[in-house]
């Protein structure tokens, strides 16, 4: 009996791997020796940021805590669950609260909403722990000072993501938390209509900074936390801030490699 589907000389796997389709997708075979592994790592889009080899003691858990990696993992979890939640959430006064309830009670795998919420809390905790670890190990010293600055900006953006996302369920907790939080912006020096110095921005007798044109107004999109605020925070939370964060994360990782590797040079 002949082996149907199999040639005498190669297995099915080999047949697939020799096909034109496979070769057009995967430009290199799986690594089979040290030199080939280097080639694959250097020419693969997804792998090229990694070093080809790394010192084992450099990634010791007791030293790095792996909090940076965990934070990045949580960011990916948040991004994916967030996109999925967007399919069943409408940022309007009429629907916001009800859609969140529906996600919890009616939608299949609506557990995404809980994962998203818990992941957000966890991400804030891990990003603080990461910052703490970097400080304790002195990994902010030259040549890594700029990477520390990038990290601080990422911290602020993480907290802003939490702040804007908190409003989206549109429940009492959300509305009042954002009201109280944004009221602080009224008191901004010069730019807040209840803060010191707003009188300086005055053109020909007209105050430029009023309760409809100050920093708080810019943040909320209106004079109180209402529908415009919900829309504005939705866009900030889902699009604007994630774009900036993605770019900064890329720079952050790049600088880790270029400034001397994680813990020590390779």
């Amino acid at each position, binding site marked *: 009996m002949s082996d149907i589907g199999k040639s005498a000389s190669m297995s099915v796997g080999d047949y697939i791997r020799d096909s034109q389709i496979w070769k057009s997708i995967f430009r290199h075979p799986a690594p089979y020796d040290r030199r080939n592994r280097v080639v694959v790592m250097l020419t693969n889009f997804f792998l090229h940021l990694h070093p080809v080899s790394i010192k084992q003691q450099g990634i010791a858990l007791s030293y790095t805590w792996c909090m940076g990696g965990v934070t990045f993992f949580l960011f990916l979890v948040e991004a994916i669950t967030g996109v999925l939640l967007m399919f069943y959430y409408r940022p309007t006064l009429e629907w916001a609260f009800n859609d969140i309830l529906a996600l919890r009670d009616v939608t299949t795998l609506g557990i995404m909403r809980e994962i998203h919420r818990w992941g957000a809390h966890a991400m804030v905790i891990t990003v603080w722990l990461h910052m703490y670890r970097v400080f304790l190990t002195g990994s902010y010293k030259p040549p890594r000072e700029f990477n520390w600055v990038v990290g601080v900006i990422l911290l602020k953006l993480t907290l802003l993501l939490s702040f804007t996302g908190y409003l989206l369920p549109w429940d009492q907790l959300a509305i009042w938390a954002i*009201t109280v939080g944004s*009221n602080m912006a009224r008191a901004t020096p010069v730019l807040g209509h209840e803060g010191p110095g707003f009188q300086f921005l005055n053109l020909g007798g007209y105050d430029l900074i009023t309760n409809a044109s100050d920093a708080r107004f*810019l943040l909320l999109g*209106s004079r109180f936390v209402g*529908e*415009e605020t919900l829309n504005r925070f939705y866009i900030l939370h889902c699009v604007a801030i994630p774009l900036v964060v993605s770019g900064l994360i890329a720079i952050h990782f790049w600088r880790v490699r270029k400034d001397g590797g994680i813990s020590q040079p390779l």
Partner: protein
Amino acid sequence: MAEQKLSTAEILAKLRASKPSASAEAPAAPTAETVSAEASAVPAVEAPATKPGSPADVLAAIRAQAAAKGSSAPDAKPAAPKPGATSDILAAIRAGKGGAAASEASASAPKATPAKSVAAAPSGAPKPSVEEMLKAVRGGAASVAPIGEPSKPVLPPLPVKPVAAKDKKVAIERRSFVAICFSPLVIAFGSMAATSLLWVLDLARFMFPNVLVEPPTKFKIGSLSDYPLGTVSTKWLAARGIWIVHTDQYKGKNLIYALASVCTHLGCTPNWLEGEQKYKCPCHGSGFYVTGINFEGPAPRPLERVGIRVAPDGMLEVDKSVKFQEEMGQWQDPNSFVDATLA
């Protein structure tokens, strides 16, 4: 060449001199005649060789010599059958073929490396060990300098360095300021910078909305008789965010005024507690009297009044666009209250 450094031939000659019993007859004769022959043969033969005079060469020569004297066969055989190394040829020369062997060997244009000759050493002769041979070389050539440096290959003459082109001094005048300002580079980058700046400013303005969807700031709330003395009305609390207060406890005057339902601590909505006759904020516990004066909790100042008046049609009209703060003395402003005794 023979004078400057010791060629292979000279080293071997010295070896022979130190070992007269081993190789007296055969190479002795051609030594003298081959010196001149070698002078011509060596350049022709050594030119293509890799390293004449290297230890491998010497060893090979010694082995060839040992084989030459060991076997009775003509010594040209080790070299003639195949193109041997320089040392082979030299050994063949010394073995007695003289000029004939030299021409024969040189005509064959050897290309093999010395290693080949080492490997091609006749197997019949007992091969002296490397240490022995080196000792012989060193011992016999005590006065001899170590293996001379490889002979310098003859190089073609260096090309003549071309004379660099002289910088032609082009007379260029100083560019005028206007010429720089309107140069393409400045125009291009300048316009890009200006456009970018304008775009950033426009972006800032873009983020301030021009249309606000808010409840109306001026609205009528009914007649004075709707709000009896000693009451706090929550009728408009949900829709408009105000309490209508009719009290005589503020400085003994019988007044109707509207309080904004915004806690002066951080902005939550206090609750009017009818039983306790006070406003109590659920967020942090700020407490206000019925008149709106704060008395407990973190609130730093009294609740704010909003504008109120009696409209021409006799109805009460509230204007939320103006506010009055008691601690600044603004509660004396007649726009902030309605004198109920005049109703």
